[in-house]
């Protein structure tokens, strides 16, 4: 499968037309996408018109003519964003900054992709629009909540997609679908025009088949935005330039205990082999002791619960039945968190983050961890709805991802192997705004390990 960067280069060199690639993507969505239930609404007419316009005009930017599609939570003027929910069917009055920047870079937008209801689910189940299915095994989950983004990119339906990550929602689908996903530093990408879930934790980021693809996408969407005062004015690095830089002497941290507890053997085995690859490339492996991840998880839980319920409280009061049982049940704990508890969890964040950064990133350049404790899960077995097993089952999915969200740090999910035909992912976690370093390490590994060469049979 062509990567996003290869597609952009081929279009720019006129070796292939945007129309050709866009039509092929639409055909593939028709043939394969339906099996995966990964799309919500594609606009073929608009996409082909944009592709033809791209073919007629000069190269507009680094994504000129490249067909993409995105999680259905980024508003576009005049378009309905379902947010994966039953409730919302009104047309947007604004266009998300992230989409506008992709447009300005010349990308073609095919339409919207499946997602967990209100981005509030780590598995990819959706009880309104149907569950998204993993291209490697359609009986297995994609991971969520950017489920359609993960499945579509992995199946070669689009060259890249945007997702969001509040507790793992880019990294989990990237991991379970065998692709690359970048959860940037909180505030790296403007959230204007994107559905909120938890305003202290939400991040927007790219999913792609290759590290360089994600680097290019992030380079386009990152940066300050007058429409979003929380979007950081920190310099946007040349992420693509970081890909291809040598990693000799770079230190990769591992944390036995913290990130190895109850992790499936195939996942640990794949990560250990990945560490050997980095060693072979000149990297050093450093063993670390981390601050208490269970405490960080607890702080995350309080912030996420309180803020999510603040977003949904009014509609939960007026129209509770329009929520799936699972989302309604997961939102309920937020009502039982007091203002003081929430404020303590928020006020602890600077010190907890500073201590973590000092404890870890004074000793290593990036921390290596599993994305999930297991490589895959079956849709049926994890279809827990709002039942008694829900908190436990869903909590297992995000055990290693949600602390990174509380800490506001960047995390890059990379494929690192297979377990009985299902992809395994690891995450590289960095200090604030160290996305370039993560891309550098990730690209070096990707080139050596070549997991991207494996493709699902569909």
């Amino acid at each position: 499968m062509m990567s996003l960067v290869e597609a952009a280069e081929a279009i720019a060199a006129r070796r292939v037309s945007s129309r050709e690639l866009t039509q092929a993507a639409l055909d593939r969505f028709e043939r394969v996408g339906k099996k995966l239930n990964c799309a919500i609404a594609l606009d073929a007419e608009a996409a082909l018109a944009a592709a033809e316009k791209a073919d007629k005009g000069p190269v507009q930017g680094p994504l000129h003519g490249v067909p993409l599609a995105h999680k259905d939570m980024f508003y576009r003027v005049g378009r309905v964003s379902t947010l994966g929910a039953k409730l919302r069917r009104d047309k947007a009055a604004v266009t998300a900054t992230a989409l506008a920047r992709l447009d300005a870079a010349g990308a073609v937008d095919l339409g919207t992709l499946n997602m967990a209801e209100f981005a509030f689910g780590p598995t990819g189940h959706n009880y309104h629009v149907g569950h998204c299915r993993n291209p490697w095994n359609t009986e297995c989950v994609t991971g969520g909540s950017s489920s359609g983004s993960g499945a579509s990119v992995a199946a070669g339906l689009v060259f890249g997609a945007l997702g969001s990550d509040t507790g793992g929602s880019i990294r989990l689908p990237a991991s379970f679908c065998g692709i690359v996903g970048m959860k940037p530093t909180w505030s790296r990408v403007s959230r204007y025009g994107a559905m909120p879930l938890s305003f202290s934790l939400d991040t927007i980021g790219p999913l792609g088949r290759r590290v360089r693809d994600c680097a290019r996408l992030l380079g386009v969407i990152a940066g300050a935005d007058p429409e979003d005062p929380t979007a950081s004015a920190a310099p946007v690095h040349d992420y693509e330039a970081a890909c291809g830089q040598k990693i000799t002497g770079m230190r990769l941290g591992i944390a036995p205990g913290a990130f190895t507890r109850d992790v499936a053997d195939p996942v640990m085995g794949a990560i250990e082999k990945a560490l050997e690859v980095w060693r072979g490339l000149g990297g050093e492996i450093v063993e670390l002791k981390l601050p208490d991840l269970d405490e960080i998880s607890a702080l995350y839980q309080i912030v996420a619960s309180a803020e999510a319920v603040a977003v949904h409280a009014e509609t939960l009061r007026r129209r509770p039945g329009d929520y799936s049982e699972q989302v309604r049940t997961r939102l309920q704990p937020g009502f039982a968190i007091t203002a003081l508890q929430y404020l303590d969890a928020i006020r602890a964040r600077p010190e907890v983050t500073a201590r973590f950064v000092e404890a870890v990133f004074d000793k290593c350049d990036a921390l290596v961890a599993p994305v999930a404790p297991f490589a895959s899960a079956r849709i049926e077995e994890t279809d827990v709805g709002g039942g008694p097993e829900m908190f436990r089952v869903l909590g297992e999915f995000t055990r290693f991802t949600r602390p990174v969200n509380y800490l506001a740090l960047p995390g890059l999910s990379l494929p690192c192997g297979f377990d009985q035909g299902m992809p395994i992912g690891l995450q590289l976690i960095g200090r604030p705004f160290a996305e370039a370093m993560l891309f550098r390490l990730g690209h070096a590994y990707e080139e050596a390990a070549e997991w991207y060469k494996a493709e699902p049979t569909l």
Partner: protein
Amino acid sequence: MDADAVIALARANGVEIVPEAAERIASVLKPTLTRLNAVSARTEFDAEPATLVKVLRP
């Protein structure tokens, strides 16, 4: 944190939670809040939560 507290707090926020769900929520929140209390006890809080942006300096 027990089920009665969950029900009372939710009711104060305009939402009814059935006892069975409240039990589950309480069992999830109890260890979470215990850990929060441990962090609160030893953390010197900044007056402004916005200081996170200082911590996130590149």
